[in-house]
């Protein structure tokens, strides 16, 4: 909302000494932020001058040499404008003048001295939309009655200042000069001046020749008034200039008055050419597929969500959004019907989003005070009578389902302090509310406040407290800390522990997007689930919620690889999304991606399967799952190498996957793992507790077996564990050997077995019994030979 200072001065006497910046800052302090606060024309040193002699430049076919009288002196100015001629009054930028794009200095143009510049309106920085062809191509010509030597901006009537506000969406009332005046009046403690709504009506009654019919609940208030014998011509300068300051292009007096009244009251109006309209207006919802040609000559196809203005035969306009082409006011129009109405704000929002967001639709969307609907009708009649020589037909057509009573809210004065945390004297509270135009009665510390209908945003006592706080100054509140029964905060810090563990193991934490491309969603998993897509994605790459995080990490790997960084060890903890049995679900997952150098030294150690496996095991051990997890080769997703990957299980529950990315996907050696943290952490671990240190020595025995290459070490370990006695405390694989002396389908696996007993020193005999059992069992079960026995 652009606020013209001159415009608002019609309704409130602001101190002329206040700078526009001061006013804007004061408004910010009461909650109305602004983008800019500047003079309408950002130029200095401009005066009105008269060309007293105009000759052609000897060295040019388009330049003129003008002698310009600016009262105190006569300047020699070279000018290229085609309309420069003797006798016209023009805008003169003197030497030293600053225009938006240029600073004027004494100069010589093709040998002729020039002391200043004759200006067009464009050169003053007026937006092109406000200029006609004449203004764009040539210098501005004043009418002859303008005095020379005076400030040219003042002479133009453009000596205005503008604050461009960014208003909050609740303040529909501030989309009007009158609303702004109340706000400023409360800040500066000034009275609001009355708006002139007087006019004379003729003896006819509109209801005898015209009627309205509202066939929808989306239009609670509709007023129509008839105006005849209009004289369409350019608006007076003050109307034009205020529209320009407000960002609206002046057209002619009639169209301009509809906009002018909208700016004053916040009520958008629509004028119909009465001769093209017939004698009836119908307001109704559109029919699906119905068509209407709007003002911009575009045929629009409508749905039943749109509200239309129609005749008996057809739709002639989109209510609240854009008028129709067939009933447009034209320069030849003589008689009009004024529409002042309220439409369903949600419907207007939807329609305007589809078609056009305008000053009018913006106001309808935010809500209109029904009293302003009446006021706007009267104000436009007043202005049309005054500036378009119109005759006002008696009476109006009225359809009204609105209530217009003030809202009554009671407020206990204690509540103000209870909410704001600061004591504000009752008198101050009453003064603020009264200045806002509310009626206040005070009785036993209870205020009874009548809130006028224009304040759609004020409905409950907290709203009144906010009004008091706004104008008293929210910033006057002194901070203190809440007093509370002391209670410990709760925090599940396991995610943070996992994050810290991964970092300590040398991985870099990433943060990527939850939205990925649809084609990636079923990758790196064999789980059966339904994907979740979003309705209106911003791009093809971000259409679907991710299930596995690995695709995101792979994308990060590619990004960095393209920048020549290949040693990548990264992880991310994030949500995984899916749909199951018609319910939306999310789970937290940890994903890892490792490639390139892991151990940095002269002999760099590169990531392989066993390094990423070590990292996963280290995490699981740390979380308390030591000796409970298994790696199996079942159910490997196709994106992973079928023979270098595993499913991770704990107590036979699948909690994740680990492995190398399938060489069909990338030539690089990339290892990944993903663990479903929700599934993992649902598996209980034991409380940490100290175990007495063993006083008796342990005995270590090495055993090596020769067995088939395909047999997995894990199976042997399991069997040894089963076979060994309770004294067998630890099993470690310390060597895997294939090659010389061993059949090529066989391998040798060497184990270090640790035996202990908490109650005594183990005897050689006891251990031998155990060892022999193990040898026996393993040999039988796996067709293995004890190494050493094979020779």
């Amino acid at each position, binding site marked *: 909302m652009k606020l013209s200072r001159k415009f608002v001065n019609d309704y409130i006497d602001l101190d002329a000494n206040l700078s526009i910046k001061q006013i804007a800052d004061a408004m910010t302090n009461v909650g109305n932020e602004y983008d800019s606060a500047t003079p309408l024309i950002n130029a200095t040193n401009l005066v009105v001058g008269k060309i007293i002699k105009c000759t052609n430049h000897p060295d040019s076919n388009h330049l003129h040499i003008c002698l310009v009288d600016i009262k105190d002196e006569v300047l020699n100015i070279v000018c290229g404008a085609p309309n420069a001629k003797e006798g016209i009054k023009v805008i003169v930028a003197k030497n030293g003048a600053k225009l938006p794009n240029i600073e004027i200095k004494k100069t010589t143009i093709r040998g002729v001295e020039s002391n200043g510049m004759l200006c067009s309106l464009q050169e003053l920085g007026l937006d092109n939309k406000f200029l006609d062809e004449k203004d764009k191509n040539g210098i501005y010509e004043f009418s002859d009655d303008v005095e020379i030597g005076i400030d040219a901006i003042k002479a133009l009537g453009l000596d205005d200042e503008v604050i461009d506000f960014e208003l909050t969406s609740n303040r529909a009332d501030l989309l009007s000069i009158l609303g702004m005046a109340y706000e400023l009046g409360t800040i500066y403690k000034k009275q609001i001046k009355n708006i002139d709504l007087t006019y004379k009506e003729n003896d006819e009654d509109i209801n005898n020749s015209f009627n309205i019919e509202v066939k929808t609940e989306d239009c609670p208030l509709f007023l129509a008034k008839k105006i005849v014998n209009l004289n369409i011509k350019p608006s007076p300068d003050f109307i034009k200039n205020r529209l320009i300051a407000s960002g609206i292009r002046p057209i002619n007096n009639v169209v301009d008055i509809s906009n002018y009244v909208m700016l004053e009251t916040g009520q958008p109006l629509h004028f119909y050419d009465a001769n093209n309209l017939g004698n009836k207006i119908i307001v109704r919802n559109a029919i699906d597929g119905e068509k209407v040609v709007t003002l911009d000559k575009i045929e629009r196809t409508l749905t039943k969500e749109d509200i239309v203005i129609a005749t008996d035969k057809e739709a002639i306009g989109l209510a609240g959004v854009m008028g129709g082409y067939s009933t447009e006011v034209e320069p030849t129009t003589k008689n009009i019907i004024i529409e002042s109405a309220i439409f369903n704000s949600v419907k207007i929002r939807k329609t305007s989003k589809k078609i056009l967001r305008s000053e009018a639709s913006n106001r309808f969307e935010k809500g209109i005070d029904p009293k302003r609907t009446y006021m706007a009708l009267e104000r436009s009649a007043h202005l049309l009578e005054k500036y378009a020589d119109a005759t006002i037909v008696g009476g109006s057509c009225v359809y009204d389902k609105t209530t217009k009573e003030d809202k009554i809210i009671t407020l206990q004065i204690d509540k103000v302090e209870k909410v704001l945390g600061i004591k504000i004297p009752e008198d101050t509270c009453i003064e603020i509310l009264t200045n806002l135009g509310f009626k206040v009665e005070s009785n036993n510390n209870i205020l009874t406040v009548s809130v006028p209908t224009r304040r759609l945003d004020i409905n409950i006592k907290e709203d009144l407290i906010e009004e008091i706080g706004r104008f008293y100054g*929210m910033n006057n509140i002194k901070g203190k800390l809440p007093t509370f029964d002391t209670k410990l905060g709760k925090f599940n810090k396991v995610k943070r522990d996992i994050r810290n563990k991964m970092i300590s193991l040398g991985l870099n934490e990433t943060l990527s997007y939850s939205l990925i491309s649809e084609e990636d969603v079923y990758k790196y998993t064999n789980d059966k689930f339904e994907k979740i897509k979003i309705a209106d994605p911003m791009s093809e790459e971000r259409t679907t919620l991710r299930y596995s995080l690995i695709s995101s990490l792979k994308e990060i790997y590619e990004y960095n690889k393209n920048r020549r960084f290949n040693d990548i060890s990264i992880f991310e903890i994030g949500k995984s999304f899916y749909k199951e049995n018609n319910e939306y679900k999310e789970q937290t997952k940890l994903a890892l991606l490792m490639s390139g150098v892991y151990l940095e030294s002269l002999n760099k150690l590169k990531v392989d399967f066993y390094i990423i496996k070590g990292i996963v095991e280290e995490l699981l051990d740390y979380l308390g799952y030591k000796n409970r997890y298994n790696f199996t080769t079942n159910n490997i997703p196709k994106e992973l190498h079928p023979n270098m990957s595993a499913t991770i299980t704990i107590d036979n529950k699948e909690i994740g996957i680990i492995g190398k990315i399938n060489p069909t996907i990338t030539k690089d050696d990339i290892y990944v793992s993903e663990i479903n943290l929700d599934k993992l952490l649902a598996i209980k671990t034991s409380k940490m507790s100290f175990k007495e240190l063993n006083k008796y020595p342990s005995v270590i025995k090495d055993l090596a077996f020769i067995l088939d290459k395909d047999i997995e070490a894990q199976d042997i370990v399991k069997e040894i564990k089963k076979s060994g006695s309770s004294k067998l405390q630890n099993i470690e694989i310390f060597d895997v050997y294939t090659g010389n002396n061993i059949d090529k389908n066989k391998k040798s696996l060497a184990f270090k077995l640790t035996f202990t007993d908490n109650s005594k020193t183990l005897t050689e005999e006891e251990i031998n019994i155990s060892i022999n059992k193990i040898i026996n069992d393993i040999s039988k079960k796996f067709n293995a030979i004890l190494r050493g026995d094979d020779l």
Partner: protein
Amino acid sequence: MFKIEEVKLQLLADLDKINSMEKLNNLKVEYLGKKGKITELTSQVKTLDNDKKKEFGIKLNELKKLFNENYNQIYTKLNEELINKKLQSEKIDITLPATKVKRGSKHPMSRVQEEFEDLFLSMGYTIYDGPELESDENCFQKLNIAKGHPARDAQDTFYLEGEYENYLLRTQTSTAQVRAMEENKEKGPLKIVCPGKVYRRDEDATHSHQFMQIEGLVIDKDISMADLKGTLELFLKKFLGENTEVRFRPSFFPFTEPSVEVDISCFKCGGKGCNLCKHTGWIEVLGAGMVHPHVLEMSGYDPNKYQGFAFGTGIDRFAMFKYSITDIRTIYGNDIRFLTQFDRRDEE
């Protein structure tokens, strides 16, 4: 007797020639071995007359002592030489690169999130974690943003396919207010913060379609705007420096009444005006206010008994302040050169 002197002279001559451990060991065998010269002399003792035994014994002991003293001295010297030689041979270039595991790093957003969590935990808040997929009801309606409300425009929403105005990616962590209030069966005091990811259809240098917020909610019988200000002052001063000034400016949010925007004095220029604060001296960092009575009511609280404050801010913004990051896209770019800059303990 004579023999002892002879052996002694011989020993002194032999000792002079010892220049290696090997020779020293041989010398020991030569003198103290089974057939060694001193051993031999010792075995002669029993053949001597009693009167000569004593004198012989004394001389022999002197000889043994001479041997031992010299032996030990030479041994120590040779041993030292040997050790020095070994140490010399083991000399390494200590300036060659170390062997080490790559250094991990914590993402700056996690760093800031953890710092916020710790700060509020220390004030007795509970850290609340809510889902990112939400119902329209929790994200909007129960926060006083009815269907068709213009405030929905400012938060252009990702609805799920086929779920328009029904299911969505949460646009704000304020949804946690609703969930925490509804889950609190006693409908009594609450003190939570909820950090997490949020999503909006928006993307440029200062907006990412995915970003992170933290929401705070405190409810009790006598919580006021002054408590809100005190809490935010503590939080913002701790995070941005003790000299930070906090300013309340009235504003509008559908779920708080009264509502304020919270500005801080610009930490870059100290309030004098610079590019960061757009020459105003102030930076807008937070939205806050008193929980709207309708919001309390919709989640089962009695607004006549309870009131509270809520605040919400972007974690991204604070990460950008703290680490001087100017483009939000850097945060989600995951360039390894960016990530590895956050690989150490930060000065507090």
